[in-house]
């Protein structure tokens, strides 16, 4: 019998920062109940949180879809924001286009995408200027990154 993945869906509001992180915290709770290793949960939660924050800062929100399988967690973040002009540049640690008011909140360190790559086992970015961005990340239950 094929095991059906647990499917989680979260709307990430772009209004303000008060709700940012709620989807990640909710996902974390689900993963904990399912008995995943603490390091796997931590990696998935951090990767998802950074993605959530990015969607709030740059894209007026978006949606997060999570498929939970016994051996991996697949996270897909989709927004209809401005798109990323230069993905390679955006991936560099320290590069950020976040405005000053966002930096004052403690964001905009230019660590978002690098953290997502660092904590996931696989990451793919599809982006189109003026249309939006989709980030797909996979966090494996069995990974050398679990000993970070």
């Amino acid at each position, binding site marked *: 019998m094929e095991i059906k993945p647990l499917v989680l869906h979260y709307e990430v509001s772009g209004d303000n920062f008060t709700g*940012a992180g*709620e989807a*990640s*915290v909710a996902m974390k709770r689900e993963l904990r109940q399912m008995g995943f290793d603490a390091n796997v949960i931590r990696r998935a939660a*951090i990767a998802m*949180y*950074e993605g959530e924050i990015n969607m709030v800062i740059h894209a007026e929100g978006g949606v997060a879809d999570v498929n939970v399988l016994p051996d991996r967690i697949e996270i897909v973040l989709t927004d209809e924001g401005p798109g990323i002009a230069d993905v390679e540049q955006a991936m560099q640690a320290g590069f950020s286009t976040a405005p000053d008011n966002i930096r004052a909140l*403690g964001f905009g*360190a230019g660590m978002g995408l690098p*953290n997502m790559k660092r904590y996931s086992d696989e990451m793919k970015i599809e982006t189109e200027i003026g249309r939006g961005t989709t980030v797909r990340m996979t966090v494996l239950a069995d990974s050398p990154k679990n000993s970070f």
Partner: protein
Amino acid sequence: MTSGQLTAAEVRRRLKLKTLCEPEGEKPVVSGYAGDLLSWVMGRAPANCAWVTVMNNQNVLAVASLCDVGCVICAEGAEPEETVLEKARAQGINVYASPRPVFELCAALSRLRGFAAEKGEKA
């Protein structure tokens, strides 16, 4: 839990911190982390640490919760607003405050028995 392991409440007592909220005072605290850039903290703060920061907005809670920190210590009197503390209570995050600067608080933490002041060190 082994006897002698530090808890959030014990850290609060020893450092004479002000309690802003302490929903889970028995949470273990075995190490520390200092920082204000949330993405940086998010990527590096270890679980069960005392996180010392001057950042006091609501996003501190998401980071504290996702990183499983033992307690948040707001340095230099940077206390969060009551609405933030209400959420901290609901999420089980211990939040303390002190007028002392970050450096002094970290130095004081490192002198606690049962505290790992350096990465890799056993508490």
